[in-house]
Every structure is written in C-alpha cells, then in structure tokens.
C-alpha cells in the first residue's frame, strides 16, 4: 500500500478547522422531537421519523448516515418543510418553522437551500443554465443583479459562464449538473445547505471533485452543511459531527473521528465494520438481517432485532439519548465502551428471538412489499 498511502497523505492538506473559534451554543438549526409519518393505505402508517432531537451548529458540517429507509432523507426534507413534519418543531435562527404560515416559511427559504441526489432530474431540462441559476434572484426581486451575480457563482463552482450560456442540462454530465445545482442553491447566499446524497449518483472520479467543491463553497460562503449520505467514507471525510439513524431514530451522535474509530452503539459498529476499505481486509463483525419495515417497527429499541447485545429490557423500554463521553451521545441500553471495532463484543443473554425481518404475519405481503419499496425508494 506504501506508495498510494503516501501520495494521499501528501496531497491531503487538512482544511483549517474553525471549530475552536465557534461557540458550541451557536445553534443555527434545532430539531425537537421531530416526527414524520406517512399513510401507507389500509389504515397503516409508515413511521419514517419517530421523534428525533438534533442541533446543528453554525459553520459545522453535520453528517446524517444510515441505510436506505432509515429516514435520513425524510429528516432533511422535514427541515425544509417539504412536506411539513407530522409533529415536533424545527427551529431555524430561533423561529419554529413548523409553526409559521406557508408565506413566512417561504420568506425564510432563501436562507435554507437544498441539493438533491439526481443532478439531472433536479434541473428543468428546457431551461438554459444561466436561467436555472438566476431564477432564485428573479423570484426574490433581485433580477437586476442577475448578470453580475450568476457568472460569479458559476465561476465559483468551476463552470465557465461563457461556455454554459446557451446550454441546457442534457448537454452536461452528471458531475457538471451537480455543479449547476450547487450554484443554484448558493446564488441567494443561504446560511444552511442541506445536501441529500449529493454524490451517490456520480462516478468515483467525479465524486471527489464535487466533495472538494462543497468544502470550498462552505469556506467561501460561510455555510452550515447538513450532509445526508449512505457512503460512510464520504461522510467521514466531510463531516465535523455525525448522527447515525436507524429506522427513524438517531442511535448515535458524536464527533466524526471518535464516532468512527470507537463506535458506541452496536448499530454504528455494524455500519463501520461494513465499510469496504482501501486499506485491506474487512474489519470483522459481519451483520445479519435487514432493517424491519417502518410500518411496524419493533417495540423498545428499534435495532434490537439485529443486535447481538439485546436483552429483555431492549424490547420493553425505548432507550433515551444520553451522553456517554464528552460530546458523544447514544440511545442504547448496552453501549459498547472501550472496545475497538473488529474485536468481538460479548453477546449478552439474548432473550429476544432474532426474528426474520419481513412479512412475518397475516399482513405479511403488505408489510414486506412496503419494506422493499421503502428500502429502494425513500431515498430519491
């Protein structure tokens, strides 16, 4: 590995961290007991997000990770009020978005922008690039600035304004379209940018360009990022703090390096050990099973059906978020402290049968169907 490792560390100029001169109390976005539910037909309900509390500090990048169907994209959209959450509140700059009228929410939106997974379908195919990027200005009555601001933003995201002037999205590759999406999001100089799987549709060689660009834009525009992704390597690199979600709840929250190097929640341990690594062998701990349906989530701790440490208590009592080390929070009755990833964790007496995780009863086909659908589609 010698040569490649050396190269990558040589190239890696670690970005200056502004964490120190930023007060931990300067919270720009606060989610309180956020709940999002969708009707699933036949009186059933999809519990997409079930009461999460989260604070995003000004200037940080908060990573939101989890498998498909865990509610991470729904959380991102609930912040934007797309759609409005079923319960709980979203405080942005001290105001509760969920309690505001639609018009008031609209007025706050310029400060809160979003970019999406599929860069091509999130752009209007019939409009020219400068119009796509300049439209937010027109909407907010600053159309006169268009000719000055748009070329600046396009240059900032690495596009030549003269070259793209007459072009439409289909004439660009996925990576370039993602640059256009980023330019469109930045043109109003937002405070918070929510990135929903911004690089998962891109080729490996293009992905690095966009990730570096996001870091640059964050520095240039003083952004706060909420970065939603399922690729843990990507999240690990870009985030200051990471929240791990499972079936609509947050199971662990902490500073990136600490969380990845010594995960506390059994689910985080499973995720981290599943990361395919450039450095070689898999780090032990192979998971079993799949996520249960969000239509009928397990009682108590939602991870217990796949957890090697589950006990009776996990079935009866929902674990509350608590601080297990400075800055590190987990919702688990049996957090794993002081054990590095890869070392076996001693399974406690498993009182909960590890049930097969789909269609296990009369409502079987429905449940499993929506499970499959959820796992494949909730992302986009």
């Amino acid at each position, binding site marked *: 590995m010698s040569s*490649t490792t050396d190269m990558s560390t040589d190239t890696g100029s670690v970005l200056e961290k502004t964490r120190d001169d930023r007060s931990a109390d300067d919270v720009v976005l606060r989610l309180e007991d956020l709940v999002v539910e969708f009707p699933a037909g036949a009186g059933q309900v999809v519990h997409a997000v079930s009461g999460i509390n989260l604070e995003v500090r000004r200037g940080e990048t908060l990573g939101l990770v989890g498998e498909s169907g865990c509610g991470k994209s729904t959380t991102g959209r609930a912040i934007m009020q797309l759609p409005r959450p079923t319960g709980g509140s979203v405080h942005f700059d001290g105001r509760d978005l969920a309690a505001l009228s639609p018009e008031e929410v609209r007025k706050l939106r310029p400060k809160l922008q979003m970019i999406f997974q599929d860069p091509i379908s999130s752009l209007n195919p019939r409009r020219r690039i400068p119009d796509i990027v300049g439209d937010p200005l027109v909407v907010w009555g600053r159309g006169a600035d268009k000719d000055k601001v748009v070329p600046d933003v396009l240059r900032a995201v690495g596009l030549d304004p003269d070259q793209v002037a007459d072009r439409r999205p289909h004439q660009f590759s996925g990576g370039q379209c993602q640059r256009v999406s980023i330019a469109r999001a930045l043109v109003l100089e937002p405070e918070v940018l929510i990135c929903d799987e911004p690089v998962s549709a891109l080729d490996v060689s293009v992905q690095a360009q966009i990730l570096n660009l996001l870091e640059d834009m964050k520095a240039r525009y003083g952004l706060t990022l909420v970065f939603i992704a399922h690729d843990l390597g990507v999240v690990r690199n870009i985030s200051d703090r990471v929240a791990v979600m499972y079936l609509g709840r947050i199971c662990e929250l902490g500073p990136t390096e600490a969380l990845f190097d010594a995960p506390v929640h059994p689910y985080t341990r499973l995720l981290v050990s599943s990361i*395919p690594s450039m450095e070689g062998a898999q780090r032990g701990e192979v998971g079993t099973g799949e996520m249960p349906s969000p239509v009928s989530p397990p009682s108590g701790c939602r991870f217990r059906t796949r957890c090697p440490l589950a006990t009776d208590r996990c079935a009866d009592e929902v674990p509350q978020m608590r601080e297990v080390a400075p800055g590190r929070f987990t919702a688990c009755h049996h957090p794993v402290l002081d054990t590095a990833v890869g070392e076996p964790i001693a399974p406690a007496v498993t009182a909960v049968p590890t049930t097969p995780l789909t269609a296990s009863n009369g409502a079987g086909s429905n449940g499993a169907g929506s499970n499959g659908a959820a796992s494949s589609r909730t992302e986009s």
Partner: protein
Amino acid sequence: MTRPTDTAPTTVAAEAAGRHRAANAAGDARPAKGDLLTVDDVHVRFHTRNGVVHAVEGVSLTLREGEVLAVVGESGSGKTVFTRRVMGLISGSRETDVEGTVTFDGITLSDLDAKGLAGVWGKEIALVLQDPMTSLNPVKRIGAQITETLVLHHKLSKQDANARAVELLRSVGLSEPERRVRQYPHELSGGMRQRVTIAIALSCSPRLLLADEPTTALDVTVQAQILDLLGDLQSRLGMAMLLVTHDLRVVRSRSDRIAVMYAGRIVETAPTKDLFDAPRMPYTEALMNAVPPITGPNHVRLAVIPGRPPNLLSPPSGCRFSPRCPYAQDRCLTEEPPLRPASELPGGGIEGHSYRCWYPVGTPENAEARRRNVERGETAAGTPVTGEMVPA
C-alpha cells in the same frame, strides 16, 4: 436469519465438489487448475444514430478454475458490455459488430448459436445482475424461478425440484425457505431478492459465475453480507468468478486478480495485492486516491481526476486517459501505449502485472513527466495541473 457462514455445507456444495473431483480423477483433458475462460481480443461496436460506439476494444484475459477476477471500471468503461459479450448475450447483428473469441473449457462460446448457448447458460455459466428488483420475474413465484433451470438441465421432477429450491434458498442464508418459495419477488426486500438471484445462479452448480455489480443497488451492511456470501459459496463450490464493479474498495479483499477498464480497454491488470501495492497506470493510482480514506483525520483534500470519462463516440486519440492524466506528454496524445508487462520495469514487477502507459507510476520517466507538467502548469493535453491532481 442464519448467517451464511453458519449454514452447513449443503448438497449443492458437496455435489459440485464431487463433480469437479470426478472430472479431474477421470483424467479429463483439462488440468486441475487450468484456464477455464479465455477471452481473446474481444471487440464490441454499436452502430448508433450518432456514430459508432466502440464499447469494448481488444480485451483479452483468462480466468483459471476457482479464481476470482475483478473487473473494475467507471460507468461507460465497457465492463458490462464486456460481461454480456462473454455470456453471449450480445452477438453480432446489423447494429452490432463483434470480434474476437470467447472460449470456455474448450468450447468456443462466441461460435455458438442461441441453442448452443442455452445448453451452457445456467448450467456451466451463470449470471447475477445488479438490480435484483428487475432481474426477477414479478409474476412468477420464487420457487418456480429457481427450479426453471433445474428442470431444464437436469430433468428433475417437480417435487424434487421444489425440495432443491428450498435447499438452495437455505444455502444462501434466506430464512423460512419453505415459505419463500411460494412468495413473489415484491414480497422480499432488495437484499433478499439478491440472495434469490444468487440461488438461481447457483442452482445447477455452474463452474463460472459472472456477477455484474451484484451489490451496487444494496445498502452497505447488506452489501457486506452479499459479498461474503458470494465469496463463501465461491470457495466452497470451487467456482470461478468474474466480479464486475465500479468500486475498487469492495474487491480489495475479495479477488485474486483485478483488471481495470477505461474507455473500453483494459488499462492495467495485476494480482490484487500487487495492484494495490504498486499501481503503474496513472488512472488506477488516481482512482485509489479519489476515494475518501476511512482512517486518519477528516476534511482531507481528495485527489481529483479532472474532467470525466470520455465519450466513446469520439474517444481521444493516443492514450484514452491522456486528457485527464496529470503526467500526459506529447507522446501520450498521439501514440496509444500497448499493454506491457510490469516485470520489464527497472524496479521489477510481479508476473501477470501489465499496464498501458508510457510513463508508468513509480519510474524515473514518470517523475520527470510530472516535474515538466508542474513546471509549465499544464499537461501536454492542455489540462491545467493543480495541486489537487498531482501528489506532491
């Protein structure tokens, strides 16, 4: 759900092993660890409205019995077209030109007609596709889909076939197999469906498994499970496997050899360890550096590959990677480098490591090319050289 590794060796495994042993004991013409699949100078060209797409251009490789060869490439590199050509799913027609030969265990697959291929498909060579949602028939029960090949090739009775289907589902780690055989694909999750497609692929104990991005559509935890399952079955059954993927990371610990494809060509091939230890082709090096590391500090500046994969309607002349390569010199723009063995390099190289580059990574020529490009601020192709591109 049972862990794949915990499942007792099934009769599938035993049978296959037995069959392979018998074949060898019988003094069969083929050697114990002979070449199972030989692909020689395969070309695939598609005639489209906009011109000719040269999707696969002169690919040659061999796969030994029981070996795992990973084909790695980005979208548009031709890896899927290549796999389909090997399988015989793409053949010559008015819109498609094919050249070159594909030989499987003495049979020239590329000469077989549809009927001949049908005798090989499923029985000797099986295919697992990327998307388990669309590769299963939505209106047929799981059991019927698994037994289809068994009934065709082995003339099993319905009852025996059904018992075998249950057994196969158990061997791929699916819970409650008796109930699953009566279910439809939509009743299963993505990971479970991929297990079903693997069970189908394994139903006749093939000697070669082609897996085209088998885990790309799956979650990371499920991806690890499926890859472990494939690796486990592969070694137990002694199958050879062609694992096609875009992610170098997933094959690091799961392949014997790797072939890197770019713009329809193999640009580097080597035993897995050697490729990671000493990549010679700048594209391979760049791919490795572009992946975010999972150890060390966060906010690391990622090495960037400028531009994007070439359009195969009008591929660049000379080396296909030259417009994106930080080391490109004049020669790279006009002359296409041949695939050369790394063992000829001064530092030496392992047998079976070849690369396609005029200025291979790790040589003085490469260092010189890099110095020159950094000095003039751009490569011979006119690509600006930035710190992100060229490792210091």
